[in-house]
């Protein structure tokens, strides 16, 4: 009989509290979004499952010595997982479209306004009772506007580890929602005639240019913004492995096996931060709202910058391209292509949009470096 009572006392049913059940529900919603809706399934599936594991009473996954504890401690607290992912993203990225049309970097820069505007917004939220964001919290939330998962996780782990779960979930959810969030903003800010603008064909890019590009980006970062070198450095390493053509084995590992393995553990570790006491806060609600605002402002400022450039160039640049300046590679570029095709079914903007799209990755890494340098 004593054995039975001890068994009962250890069972999940006897130990559940409301918060844990609710968080398991959140985990199930994430699984549903990943499996049924195919929203960023590569990340939301492990994150959702991690959220369920982390809220098992007496499971011990997140206690010291547990799997999720170590995954978080080793990979995220140190910043290693997001950086390894960034190396893989570098190995996956073809900068050809950007090298052919360097001006697109300006769109990648303009779209980062979403980040800095949200910084203001997060601080302004402090006027509402129940919110108390410090400047570092605000910076970590604002980076959601960079629309770049690894960058957001890296910055949050450095500046506001206690908000990491909510920030990562917001960042990846909104990235999945890019096809819903962006088009209305893009249509609102452009005219039909502007959306129909056709772009000149991109010039060819030599192999030397592609090899020199990552080295050049790294050089500039070393000179001006060393705080961004962890992100930019790993990104450039991955890209150099790809473009040099002499280490195809390493490049293929970085963009396949390694990034996949790291993604599993990164997702689980982020999910482990979705515990009831950390997630069920007013602040989470604020983060979700601010994330959507950051995304929208980023899209709008990118489009507005593209409009200015379009006017200055005498109508050679399609303003829709600006929306691709928030990173979210390649989803944002596909959205630009789709909205462009709606206005003119012969106008394929995808290759042109890849330029500002990869510029956005650089832009958000630079913005993260600025925030780290100023607040870190």
């Amino acid at each position, binding site marked *: 009989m004593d054995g039975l009572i001890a068994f009962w006392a250890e069972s999940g049913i006897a130990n559940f509290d409301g918060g844990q059940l609710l968080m398991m529900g959140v985990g199930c919603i994430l699984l549903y979004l990943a499996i049924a809706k195919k929203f960023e399934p590569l990340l939301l599936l492990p994150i959702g499952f991690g959220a369920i594991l982390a809220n098992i009473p007496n499971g011990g996954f997140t206690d010291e010595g547990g799997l999720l504890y170590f995954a978080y401690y080793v990979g995220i607290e140190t910043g290693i997982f997001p950086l390894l992912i960034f190396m893989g993203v570098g190995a996956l990225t073809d900068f050809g479209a950007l*090298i052919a049309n*360097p*001006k697109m*970097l*300006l769109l*990648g*820069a303009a779209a*980062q*306004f979403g*980040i*800095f*505007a949200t*910084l*203001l917004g*997060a*601080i*302004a939220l*402090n*006027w509402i009772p129940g919110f108390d964001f410090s*400047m570092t919290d*605000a*910076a970590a939330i604002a980076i959601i506007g960079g629309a770049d998962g690894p960058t957001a996780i890296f910055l949050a782990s450095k500046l506001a580890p206690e908000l990491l779960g909510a920030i990562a979930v917001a960042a990846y959810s909104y990235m999945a929602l890019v096809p819903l969030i962006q088009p209305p903003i893009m249509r609102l800010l452009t005219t039909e005639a502007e959306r129909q603008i056709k772009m000149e064909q991109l*010039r*060819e*890019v*030599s192999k*030397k*240019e592609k090899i*020199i*590009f990552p080295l*050049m*980006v790294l050089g*500039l970062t070393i000179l*001006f*913004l060393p705080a961004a070198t962890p992100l930019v450095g790993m990104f450039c390493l991955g890209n150099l492995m790809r473009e040099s053509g002499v280490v195809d084995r390493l490049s293929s590992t970085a963009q396949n096996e390694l990034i996949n393995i790291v993604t599993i553990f990164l997702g689980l570790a982020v999910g482990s931060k979705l515990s009831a006491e950390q997630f069920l806060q007013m602040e989470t609600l604020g983060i979700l709202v601010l994330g959507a605002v950051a995304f929208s402002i980023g899209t709008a400022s990118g489009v507005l910058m593209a409009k200015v450039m379009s006017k200055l160039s005498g109508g050679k640049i399609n303003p829709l391209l600006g929306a691709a300046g928030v990173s979210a590679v390649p989803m944002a570029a596909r959205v630009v292509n789709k909205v462009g095709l709606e206005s003119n079914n012969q106008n394929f903007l995808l290759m042109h949009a890849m330029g500002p799209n990869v*510029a956005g990755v*650089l*832009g958000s890494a*630079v*913005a993260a470096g*600025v*925030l780290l340098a*100023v*607040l870190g």
Partner: protein
Amino acid sequence: MASISEQLYDALGIMVLGMALVFLFLSFLILAMNLVARKFGPVPQVDNTSPAVQPQMSTTAVSPLMTVVITAAIHQHRKKA
């Protein structure tokens, strides 16, 4: 309340500084990319490839004569056998 507006002021400062730095950084990158493109950009390859292709064309142009010679030689060889 005062501290929030102070923080807002700080955030505004970071916003201006941050956007300026991002633009400055990426503008430098544009300059550098244009320099690299001028030095290492693809040379008009059409000129390079066409002379390389032409000799091949001329050998194939000669080849009908060669084939006649070769077939004649084979014929002779077979007649011997």
